[in-house]
């Protein structure tokens, strides 16, 4: 090869490597959360035309608060799903951690202690899930299905099947945290916003985030690259459970009471929200912004059906429909390259 052709080859290389294939906007348009967001805006526009109530401050306040709990849990679920895992125990865990928080505060402890007990219980359950899955190589579906039953059962036993509505000396503060708002935005929504930002930064800028996606993309390759795969897997289950605990703490404060039925069947909605938000159950793909967006779409469907005067019994039908459509859309886009 002559030196001249070497130079031109190098020039081509230079232009190739410095060339950026997609601008920020272009790459955003290719993500699922973007299209779900478009759907949300479209539904919002239609609803504000056909319903006077929809675009009121009161209604938007309710919508955002209602989906905040699911958004918080979907963030945790997204980390699990990235690793090609699943956590079916989040709904039951809400029941258990809500009851634990309630019992601790009912016994006269402060809201701080109640919070620590709630989060400690959540983290412990996540740790058990994670260790069984990562170190004993058990299937996430089976482990967390077992935990779904166990956590709900423990919640029933420790609550003695009674409702708790007295939360000790800090009752007012506790109910303020979950039920009130700051600058017109409900507190759970603030928590969701902050948590979304934390997840976004962690996914993009932390080694942990990089490793979580690597484990989901190719566990063996991650292992060979020296990534502590088992510890990464344990971490995502602890985080997912902690998000469920946090959501329970806020929700009990909002309700002002808790029974052991708290969070019953929520796992399905949380998983649906995460998948609608662009997470791939095969692992390796999820978006921090997708979790609240997926949760928002589901709440919006519920709210819209209600305002449009359609029987609320149809809600699950539309949630299911959107879930299947979202996955179908993903399939079509992948096939199109």
């Amino acid at each position, binding site marked *: 090869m002559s030196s001249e052709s070497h130079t031109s080859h190098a020039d081509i*290389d230079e232009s190739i*490597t410095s060339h950026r294939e997609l601008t920020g906007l272009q790459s955003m348009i290719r993500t699922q959360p973007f299209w779900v967001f478009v759907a949300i805006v479209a539904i919002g526009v239609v609803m504000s035309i056909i319903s006077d109530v929809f675009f009121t401050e009161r209604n938007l306040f309710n919508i955002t608060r209602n989906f905040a709990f699911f958004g918080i849990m979907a963030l945790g679920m997204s980390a699990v799903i990235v690793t090609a895992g699943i956590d079916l125990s989040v709904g039951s865990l809400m029941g258990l951690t809500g009851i634990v928080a309630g019992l601790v505060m009912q016994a006269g402890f402060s809201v701080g202690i109640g919070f620590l007990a709630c989060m400690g219980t959540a983290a412990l359950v996540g740790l058990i899930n994670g260790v069984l899955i990562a170190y004993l190589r058990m299937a996430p579906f089976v482990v967390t299905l077992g935990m779904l039953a166990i956590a709900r059962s423990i919640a029933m036993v420790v609550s003695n099947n009674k409702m708790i509505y007295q939360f000790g000396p800090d009752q007012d503060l506790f109910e303020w945290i979950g039920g009130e708002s700051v600058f017109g935005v409900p507190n759970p929504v603030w928590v969701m916003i902050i948590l979304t930002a934390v997840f976004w930064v962690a996914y993009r800028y932390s080694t942990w985030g990089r490793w979580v996606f690597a484990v989901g993309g190719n566990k063996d390759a991650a292992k060979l690259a020296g990534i502590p795969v088992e510890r990464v897997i344990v971490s995502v289950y602890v985080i997912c459970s902690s998000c469920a605990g946090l959501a329970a703490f806020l929700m009990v404060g909002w309700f002002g009471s808790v029974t052991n039925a708290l969070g019953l069947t929520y796992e399905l909605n949380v998983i649906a929200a995460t998948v609608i938000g662009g997470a791939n159950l095969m692992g390796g793909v999820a978006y921090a912004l997708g979790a609240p967006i997926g949760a928002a779409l589901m709440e919006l469907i519920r709210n819209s059906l209600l305002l449009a005067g359609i029987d609320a019994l149809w809600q699950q039908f539309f949630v299911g429909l959107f879930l299947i459509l979202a996955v179908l859309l993903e399939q079509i886009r992948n096939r199109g390259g």
Partner: protein
Amino acid sequence: MPALELRGVSKNFGAIVALNGVDMDISNGEVVGLMGDNGAGKSTLMKIVAGNFPPTSGKMLLDGEEVQFSKPIDARRKGIEIVYQDLALCDNLTAAANVFLGREKKKRIGFIRYLDHSAMIKHAAELFKELKSETRPRDLVRQMSGGQRQAVAIARTRLSDPKIVLMDEPTAAISVRQVAEVLELIRRLKESDHGVVLVSHRMPDVFSVCDRVAVLRRGTKVADKAIANTNPEEVTGLITGAIGSA
């Protein structure tokens, strides 16, 4: 002095003798072809050198110093990198992310450390350029050709400036055009004074890039010859057993 020396390396799996007293030397800037039929012990030998498992007996010397590995990371720390047959890449990550996987570059503000994307992309682009590969650091590995994936896998090995690069069937699953690209990558490694072991079934590849060829048959090394002193017919005979040893 050879960069890597194997002395009487044997490996038994229960009653099965996978390797039987193999001696081998690899020098810097030398490409050694390792050939043999399926089950001849090529992969076992590579896995021992890469630290996947220890030999039953025999020893390994790196720059004259005896080394023992209990896991792959030990071998990497001593300067032995391996490009796996299945390439061991994460399809969902970019080329740059794969190159730096497990060895991410970080920046710090105060006590907070975060991923330095621009530095990793820049460094990866330099590595691809050195390898004369058309791989773009920001592309997802999922969208890449076999040749580009090889470039990513090989670029990984160059982060630590290893002494020895082991390549397990790098041309087994790619198109003819890409094979030429991969062989070119191997020549780059040789030019930059790395010792390379190329495990391959493909006679043309071995004869086009290797300086020496070693042949294993049923766990025993039956030949170790300079490429100039042999020919594909002889090597084929050695592999199949038609020629006893040379």
